[in-house]
């Protein structure tokens, strides 16, 4: 049976996911007549909610979501009043995604732009292969975070797990707490004025009041991804 597609805006601006399917809600949000604001209730851990949005919409999801919520987001603001499953805001291009609870693994993976805020903790591989996104995590992050991070900023107000920034390119990492271990080619770096200033901006954008001077900056030692002439004999 083909899914029933409802593209009309609900009168009260609320869609109950126990009464509508994920596809119906996503089609509504992607349609030319998408409502400027929408609240989705009873997500019950559904996957791929509010994915592929490409307009200046304000979507609130009232509850816990499953995998890939707000993936590929452009322009939209998506607020998750709960926890997010694997890959929240993966491949985001722009806009803002705010998780009020915890995020599972691979939060903000490969994302090119926009701001991802996680009030709680983010699990392993947060910001893996990040390509320009800004990520601010209020709590801790898990192991292998910012693996191969190419661009963008990752701010962690708590602690970071094992192998932070392994094989990192030019993403900049700011950690307030401890780092269990640094990955290959990731090193501690000096906090200069421009770093304190950009960190202040990111914390302000996330609504956090920590003092930027409490953070340590980490980034690439640039030994791994640059060709080094001493290694010529290996080729």
């Amino acid at each position, binding site marked *: 049976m083909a899914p029933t597609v409802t593209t009309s805006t609900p009168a009260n601006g609320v869609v109950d996911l126990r009464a509508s399917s994920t596809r119906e809600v996503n089609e509504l949000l992607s349609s030319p007549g998408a409502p400027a604001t929408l609240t989705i209730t009873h997500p019950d851990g559904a996957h791929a909610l509010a994915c592929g949005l490409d307009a200046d919409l304000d979507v609130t999801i009232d509850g816990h979501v499953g*995998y890939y919520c707000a993936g590929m987001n452009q322009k939209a603001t998506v607020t998750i009043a709960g926890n997010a*499953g694997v890959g929240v805001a993966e491949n985001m291009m722009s806009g803002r995604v705010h998780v009020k609870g915890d995020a599972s693994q691979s939060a903000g993976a490969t994302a090119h732009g926009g701001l991802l805020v996680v009030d709680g903790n983010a699990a*392993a591989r947060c910001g893996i292969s990040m390509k320009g996104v800004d990520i601010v995590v209020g709590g801790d992050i*898990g192991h292998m975070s910012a693996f191969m991070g190419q661009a963008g900023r990752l701010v962690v107000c708590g602690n970071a797990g094992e192998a932070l920034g392994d094989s990192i390119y030019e993403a900049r990492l700011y950690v307030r707490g401890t780092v269990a271990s640094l990955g290959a080619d990731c090193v501690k770096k000096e906090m200069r004025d421009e770093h304190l200033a950009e960190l202040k901006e990111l914390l302000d954008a996330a609504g956090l009041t920590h003092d930027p001077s409490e953070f340590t900056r980490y980034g690439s030692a640039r030994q791994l991804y640059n060709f080094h002439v001493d290694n010529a004999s290996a080729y």
Partner: protein
Amino acid sequence: MCGIVGLHLRDATLHPQLGALLSGMLDAMCDRGPDSAGMAVYGDPTWSPEGESTVSLLDSPIPATELAQQLGIVLSAPVTGHDLDPTVVVHAPVGTEVLTAAVRSVVPTARIIGFGDHLTVLKGMGNPTELADRFGLRSASGWQGVAHTRMATESAVTAEGSHPFAVGPDQCLVHNGSFSNHMSIKHELERSGVSFDSENDTEVGARYVAKQLAEGVDLEKALLMLNETFDGFYTLLVSTSDSFAVVRDAIACKPAIIAETDRWVAMASEYRALAKLPGIDTARIFEPEPEEVYVWHRQ
């Protein structure tokens, strides 16, 4: 990809709802493993009555009623058989070892998939929800249950290959992932006298844990030893008659989520499986950390 669900009830007033709650969790995980399923219940008064031991088996060459009759003659005791196609469950007021030995002598070609004082294991091929309905899981009661929906990668799609693997008394192990060094561990276990029923990687994990428990190691320690010994990807849910435990490998790419209230502890591959549990809105919800062993004990 596979789906795991497990529920450990702390509040005895929920015991009559165990099967209904566990089935609801299983339904939500069908799309993670649609090819076969297995489920285990601790303390159902029909399948595993108090004061009796229970053996669950596959590939019985004779129907449950006939098996029960023949076992009754061998044991000189009343034996009850349940035909839960393709699983057969028999129970009798004799010791577990006595009943297990009698089953082995009467139907030597059958495969024992679970045994103990409290445990019933049900396995089958096909859609997990349909299997649960056929088995009557929804009306089961008890204090603890686990279930698994399988998308086979390491061995064939058969009822035998579905989890849980229950190779020690009242023990179950459910696995999402795949071990990579299980063959060498299997050879070591075989050299020390452990025999295997299948080529399945998960059975090696279950036999390893069962061996440690049989040697007097507690469940937490056994799982820490498993962490050190096994390579590969795993989220494991391991249960005994009085314990419920979760452990993940160091990489932790196989999902797991735990929710806990005063009335129950639940574990699943995804939150979807927990969303309908009573009191979930105020539950403590968290993902288990890699290489950390989480154990809950029956009060």
